[in-house]
């Protein structure tokens, strides 16, 4: 078997001005056989992205490949000339960047950028490339595959951009594709389709892959081999089944264990009766883009009459498909995106749609942790300064006091103090995300809008962050809106959960009920799509889906239920015309569906959803044992 990729003794250093060179990657060796997929897993900040980039012969600004050999497709990339590299990149090996939000050129339309690799390598005509692009868009479950290419990066959601990025990498049919966390921002339903698409494309063309991720379930589906990294060093490597099923290294074990996050144990509200005091209340909020119609409402609605409330000291999870408006909701509440209609009440006071009109106190108490961590950190500011500024601004801390507090916050989010002196460009994706969270916490908020804050984190660190959130909630009564696509995390930290579909809240339920009881058809689809950490799950899920589900309709309904085209219990003639009724179930859950509640209870022996929590892990000990293993002990 030939090795398509063969890295030996790779050393990469970060060179910071005046300081000594810090090693980022140390003595890393790995091999990938042709047509195989290697998963790079490991701690956030362990050097996964750095290694992935080095396979393309590239080192980020401020970093340098200082030793070792990187053989890719028969070329030693460290010795290639600029011209050779140019011909090599994008054609022989292509890359899916971790931060799709910033990796797209804001001034160019997305379509242009997606077909560019094909165009610059003269591998196909424009028409061919566009055709191929649209096929890929369709395979990656992007909305409006024909026209989405004409849009610009800022008009898409994080998950959509990530898929476009993948399309861009695949458009040239390269021999090797390096995926850097390509599905972090995808909801599970979309993730299934994307993973399936990846798999089929890779298998069809015999593409060799490197897949950077922290989602072990995904690893189980897609990779053949895995390398576990920590602190820039390889901790363990081997076939996926071995690593996941029978980890030998301590850290790997910890990692695997951390995948099984225990569900939230509900605790009594610390101060007040939750039912009485709501921190945040949304009613009939409409947000959109484009021209306003006669009623002053936008043409293209992203959020449609959303009503939600967050009781004090509790956590509301928001889940939903990529592009359904989750981030928009967060931005709206935080005042970054004005709403066209509706009302938002925060701590009993009505919030102004425009942030400028909110009081300082409101601003402090309501913090947002944005999905795109890159874009919200000022690139010219040191991390320390960014955090200290919030401390100074809202809490009047200065000098050493502020610095100590910043260091404490970094401890909380499990980052080394050394980062305080770094610039955002010198951090990894997960580190930036945690910095953002720390910055939000620095304001001592009452409500934090967490937009996929754990998306780029490995399970160990993610669990720690979730635990931190819970701890803060216990101690300070902070409330959260927790946007995620990780249903485990939802169960672990949320009290309630709202399911968004196409800008509408289709279900509002307690998070514990996610496994039981009646659900909106979309929720059921979501829950059934949560990947399991065993090989072959994806294939099964796909077959099951193809067998059991009706063919999605291509036409969008004019009125009625938005989920209608994909619904497996749809009732043509009813669902696609009439306003959707909201049913209030006995447990307090609200479901927007025509089908009566009883019918919504999934069929099964005990009437519960497949318990994704107790998913089997091939070859591991009993789940119970893992459940007691609390990774977030700090």
């Amino acid at each position, binding site marked *: 078997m030939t090795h398509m990729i063969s890295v030996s003794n790779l050393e990469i250093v970060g060179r910071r001005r005046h300081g000594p060179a810090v090693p980022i990657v140390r003595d890393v060796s790995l091999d990938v056989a042709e047509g195989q997929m290697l998963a790079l897993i490991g701690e956030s900040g362990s050097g996964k992205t750095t290694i992935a980039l080095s396979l393309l012969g590239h080192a980020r600004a401020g970093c340098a490949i200082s030793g070792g050999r990187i053989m890719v497709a028969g070329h030693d990339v460290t010795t290639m000339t600029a011209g050779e590299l140019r011909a090599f990149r994008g054609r022989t090996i292509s890359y899916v960047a971790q931060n799709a939000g910033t990796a797209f050129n804001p001034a160019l339309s997305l379509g242009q950028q997606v077909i560019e690799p094909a165009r610059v390598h003269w591998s196909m005509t424009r028409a061919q490339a566009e055709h191929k692009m649209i096929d890929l868009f369709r395979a990656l479950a992007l909305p409006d595959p024909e026209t989405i290419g004409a849009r610009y990066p800022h008009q898409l959601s994080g998950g959509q951009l990530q898929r476009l990025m993948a399309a861009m990498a695949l458009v040239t049919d390269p021999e090797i594709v390096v995926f850097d966390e390509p599905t972090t921002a995808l909801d599970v339903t979309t993730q299934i389709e994307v993973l399936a698409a990846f798999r089929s494309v890779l298998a069809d063309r015999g593409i060799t892959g490197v897949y950077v991720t922290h989602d072990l379930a995904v690893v189980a589906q897609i990779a053949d081999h895995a390398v576990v990294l920590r602190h820039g060093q390889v901790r363990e490597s081997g076939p996926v089944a071995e690593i996941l099923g029978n980890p030998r290294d301590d850290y790997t074990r910890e990692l695997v264990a951390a995948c099984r996050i225990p569900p939230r144990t509900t605790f009594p509200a610390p101060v007040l009766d939750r039912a009485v005091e709501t921190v945040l209340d949304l009613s009939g909020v409409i947000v959109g883009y484009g021209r306003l119609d006669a009623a002053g409402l936008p043409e293209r609605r992203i959020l449609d009459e959303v009503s939600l409330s967050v009781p004090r000291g509790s956590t509301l999870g928001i889940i939903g498909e990529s592009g359904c408006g989750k981030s928009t909701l967060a931005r709206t509440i935080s005042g970054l995106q004005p709403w066209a209609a509706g009302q938002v009440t925060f701590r009993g006071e009505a919030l102004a749609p425009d942030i400028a009109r909110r009081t300082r106190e409101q601003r402090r108490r309501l913090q947002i942790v*944005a999905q795109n961590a890159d874009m919200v950190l*000022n690139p010219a500011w040191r991390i320390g300064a960014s955090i200290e500024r919030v401390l100074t601004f809202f809490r009047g801390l200065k000098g050493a006091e502020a610095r100590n507090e910043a260091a404490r916050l970094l401890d909380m989010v499990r980052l080394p103090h050394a980062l305080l002196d770094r610039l955002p460009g010198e951090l990894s994706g997960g580190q930036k995300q945690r910095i953002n969270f720390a910055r939000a916490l620095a304001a001592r908020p009452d409500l934090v809008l967490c937009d996929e804050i754990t998306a780029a984190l490995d399970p160990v660190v993610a669990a720690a962050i979730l635990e931190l959130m819970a701890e803060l909630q216990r101690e300070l009564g902070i409330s959260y809106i927790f946007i995620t696509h990780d249903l485990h995390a939802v169960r672990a930290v949320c009290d309630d959960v709202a399911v968004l579909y196409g800008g509408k809240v289709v279900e509002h339920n307690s998070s514990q009920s996610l496994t039981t009881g009646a659900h909106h058809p979309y929720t059921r689809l979501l829950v059934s799509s949560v990947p399991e950490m065993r090989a072959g799950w994806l294939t099964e899920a796909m077959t099951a889906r193809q067998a059991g589900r009706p063919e999605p309709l291509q036409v969008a309904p004019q009125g009625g239920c938005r989920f209608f085209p994909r619904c497996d219990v749809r009732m043509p003639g009813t669902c696609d015309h009439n306003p959707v009724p909201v049913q209030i179930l006995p447990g307090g859950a609200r479901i927007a569906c025509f089908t009566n509640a009883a019918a919504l209870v999934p069929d099964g022996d005990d009437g519960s959803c497949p318990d994704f929590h107790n998913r089997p892990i091939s070859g591991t000990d009993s789940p119970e044992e893992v459940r007691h293993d609390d990774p977030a002990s700090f």
Partner: protein
Amino acid sequence: MKVRVSLPSATQRVGMLFGFWLVLAMFGPLLAPYAPGQIIDTQVFAPISHQHWLGTDYLGRDLGSRLLYAVRYTVLICTLSTAFSCGCGILLGVATTATPAWVEQVAGRLMDGILSIPSLLCALLVIAAFGDSLMALVLTMGVIYTPGAYRTSRALALRIARMDYITVAMARGEGRLFIIWREILPNMRGPLLADVGLRFIYAVLLLSNLSFLGLGVQPPLVDLGSLVRENVLGLVYGAVAVVLPTIVIAVLTVGINLVLDATAGRRS
């Protein structure tokens, strides 16, 4: 054994270079062997020799002494006026990205207007109104270059003002000045410093033009540009008197620009 020579940081280098020129400006004239107006030789455009170590100028005065005085006035006046014009221009340019639209309309059109008024007219008016005071000179030069700095910084700031991190800062409720000064400015350092450097050069040249008109340094003192201008006839004799001041201008301005470039090249 490896010896690590640590280079001074970019800011230090800017500081050192400016420091050098400032010291030269302050104390250089003390080194001058002759008075700036003293005619020491009947030979004009004399080459470098024993008595006059840098030759003589078009009147037979000691070029070295005059050069030292010229450095003083050029460095001081140009630094001040560049600071003024860039200060005002940049502040306004960046500020108008964070203010209501009408402010931009007013300020922008005003700047456009000032830019299209010939500087000759401004200069003559200032001379008529204020005579040859150095203060008026610095202000005139400042005003003349403010619109340019304004336009450049505004063009740069527009891109940055739309970045998410600026939105975040505004959402936090930061004051306008803070956003301009701390959030936007550091991110446009590169092009901005290039612009400041260019404006310094323009100032050096403008100073000599204004001197020519009568609004500059008064004789027998000179500025560097005027030194070149008054000795330009020496060109046909390849005289030191025209070559040397040109070189000094080049060393001064190119040096400052290179150092600014180096500063801009690195993120703080």
